[in-house]
């Protein structure tokens, strides 16, 4: 009897484990059961969003998702596009290229999205390309690597200023400070590797020399060894290229090592977490980015200033803090897509949507004023950039 009871217990366990998958195996061909759409509302236009809600870019993914949620709610309150509401399906790529590919595949094959916003990072954005090409739908990336639009793909667009704009701007600024020898530290993947390549290509033009070039991996917790080498090589400034949370570790390591040479960064560091993470070590840190952080930089009579103020007001009211540049990149990506949709017939195809996005002209967004073209899917200029400095725990415009 005891043996039988144990068998029963074991069986129950197996069945409990088996029941979940088996329950649905027969209904896998059930297809899409879309959310209970009311009779008068039209089928929503579905957009996929692959964002880094966890991992080293979590600090970027969060404001991006915030901006998308807020703007979609507003667009739908205003009646959607051509009477169709917009529905965004979010996927977390955990700052991992492989997860981004799986998420994209799911969005395309399972959710049937018309376009994809993402990924948050350059590595994820590039990894998704195979799936994007297979499905033939447009991708609008909020990541800043040059490779995204430099390695041109007709389906792929980008909203931030790419490294090929930011790097020369930054290097020229550094050279103007009377510096000639720099040490570079960049993360080994995605945005950092992309930035390093652009840095090396532009050093000579700016009249600078890299006396040390060091790399680190996402997830590393101490960069003292690399910084010591940079210091030993006689660098007069450190140029750091990463969008990860490791940036604040680098600033802290420099302070701990007693390094007094200035630290320069990229538009990937325009996040409050950097200042919070590095504390006093963040003081004096300089980086180039868009104007949303200090909207007066737009010029207070411009349309861009009004758009930015409106966005800042609504975002601050909703989330209790000011939006950063990443929220702006997502805002731009969504509005460019939605504007393109509104120029089309109700039953547009993915190819028509792509063409309409490419036809974007003079869209005044947060990152700047976008004009895409047949061979320009970045649409920004260096005029959209400004140099910031961290002072007393906040951003100010650098001279």
């Amino acid at each position, binding site marked *: 009897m005891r043996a039988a009871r144990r068998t029963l217990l074991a*069986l129950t366990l197996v069945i409990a484990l088996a029941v979940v998958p088996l329950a649905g195996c027969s209904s896998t061909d059930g297809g899409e059961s879309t959310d209970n759409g009311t009779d008068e509302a039209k089928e929503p236009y579905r957009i996929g969003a692959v964002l880094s809600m966890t991992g080293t870019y979590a600090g970027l993914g969060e404001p991006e998702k915030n901006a998308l949620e807020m703007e979609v709610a507003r667009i739908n309150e205003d009646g959607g596009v051509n009477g169709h509401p917009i529905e965004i399906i979010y996927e977390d790529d955990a700052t*991992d290229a492989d997860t981004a590919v799986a998420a994209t595949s799911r969005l395309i094959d399972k959710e049937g999205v018309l376009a994809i916003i993402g990924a948050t990072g350059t590595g994820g954005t590039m990894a998704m390309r195979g799936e994007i090409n297979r499905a033939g739908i447009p991708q609008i990336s909020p990541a800043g690597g040059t490779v995204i639009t430099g390695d041109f793909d007709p389906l792929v667009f980008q909203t931030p200023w790419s490294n090929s704009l930011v790097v020369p701007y930054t290097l020229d600024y550094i050279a103007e400070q009377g510096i000639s020898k720099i040490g570079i530290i960049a993360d080994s993947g995605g945005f950092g590797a992309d930035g390093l390549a652009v840095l090396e290509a532009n050093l000579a033009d700016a009249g600078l020399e890299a006396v040390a070039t060091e790399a680190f991996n996402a997830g590393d917790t101490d960069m003292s060894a690399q910084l010591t080498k940079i210091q030993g090589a006689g660098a007069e400034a450190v140029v750091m290229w990463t969008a990860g949370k490791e940036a604040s570790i680098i600033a802290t390591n420099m302070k701990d090592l007693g390094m007094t040479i200035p630290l320069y960064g990229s538009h990937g560091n325009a996040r409050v977490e950097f200042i919070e993470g590095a504390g006093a070590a963040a003081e004096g840190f300089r980086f180039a980015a868009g104007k949303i952080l200090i909207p007066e930089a737009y010029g207070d009579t411009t349309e861009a200033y009004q758009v930015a103020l409106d966005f800042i007001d609504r975002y601050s009211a909703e989330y209790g803090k000011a939006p950063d540049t990443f929220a702006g990149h997502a805002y731009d990506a969504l509005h460019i897509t939605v504007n393109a949709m509104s120029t089309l017939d109700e039953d547009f195809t993915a190819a028509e949507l792509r063409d309409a996005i490419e036809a974007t002209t003079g869209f005044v967004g947060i990152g700047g004023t976008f004009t895409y073209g047949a061979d320009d899917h970045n649409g920004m200029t260096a005029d959209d950039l400004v140099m910031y400095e961290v002072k007393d725990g906040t951003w100010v415009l650098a001279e």
Partner: protein
Amino acid sequence: MSGRSLNISRFLTVRAAIVAVLLLVVAVLPLFVTGTDARYVLKVLTFVGINVLIVTGLALLFGYAGQVSLGHAAFYGLGAYASAYVTATLGMPWFVGLAAAIAVTALGGLALAVPSLRLRGHYLAMATLGFGEIMRIVFVEASSITGGPDGFSGIPLPSLGSFVFATPQSIYWLVWGVAALAIMISYNIVSGRPGRSMRALHGSELGAMASGVDLVGLKVRVFVISAVFAGVAGSLYAATVGFVSPSTFTFHFSVVLVAMAVLGGTRSLAGPAAAAILLTLVSFPDIVLPGLSRDILAVVQDWEVDIYALVIILVVLFLPEGIAGAGRRVLGLLRRGVVEPSGSDSGTGQRGDEA
């Protein structure tokens, strides 16, 4: 007495019939997946097949020979990168990539078999764990071959001659065909002399040696076969997805594989295969329950690792023999049911547990 042999042969016939039915179900399943999300469903079922293939290799190593590997994700990765490099970078046909994957993982298995000759239990587990971690770092750092942390993209689809496995159905059949072949090979191994040697090794290494089992040869062979199965799976994975990055081949995945093997049970091939199917589908609950809301989906995905851990704990506590053990008990009960009404030999049913 002749009644007993009759029952055993009937039992074997029943088993063959079950296997045939299962094969048929797996083979025709794609024909019934026709919804708008068919492509996604088939892709997930293909991943299930890939995991079944790896876990079959692990069943030989862990379930039969009793050797723990916490580094199997590394073989999977080695196979994936070897195949990706040969097909995408060198532009060779897919079967050359597959051959490269087999060669590289066989070498890897050999490399891991050497310490296993001296190490046992926890120490072997630590050595394989170290091997897995070293390989993960290699995948990240050897960026000129592997693409580094950004991964390796643009891997062509599997092909044989001029035939390209381009549709999700054809890839599904390819992967499950290979998995079935691997199970068949494994069955032949375990039902013969090597299988008995492996079970002896599982029971007592010293005892096996005393009984004349060639431990060195056995361990090396089983490690190599197990590694090659994972390498073939890696080659299939790389060609199916078209993209690989180091984050797929982490310690986490090795643990998931061990969880499948543990849940599946020892001295069985069917158990681990069933466990691989069940646990792979945990990651894709929306395949199983199509109406599932996205919020629940997100919760399940967040707790995925915890679900695996819970499975291991529950299995070790209540079902130490895994699915296979439970299956054997059920079969034993059934056979007793078959034997008792007609048979005078009541002892026969009890012995079924050892089959």
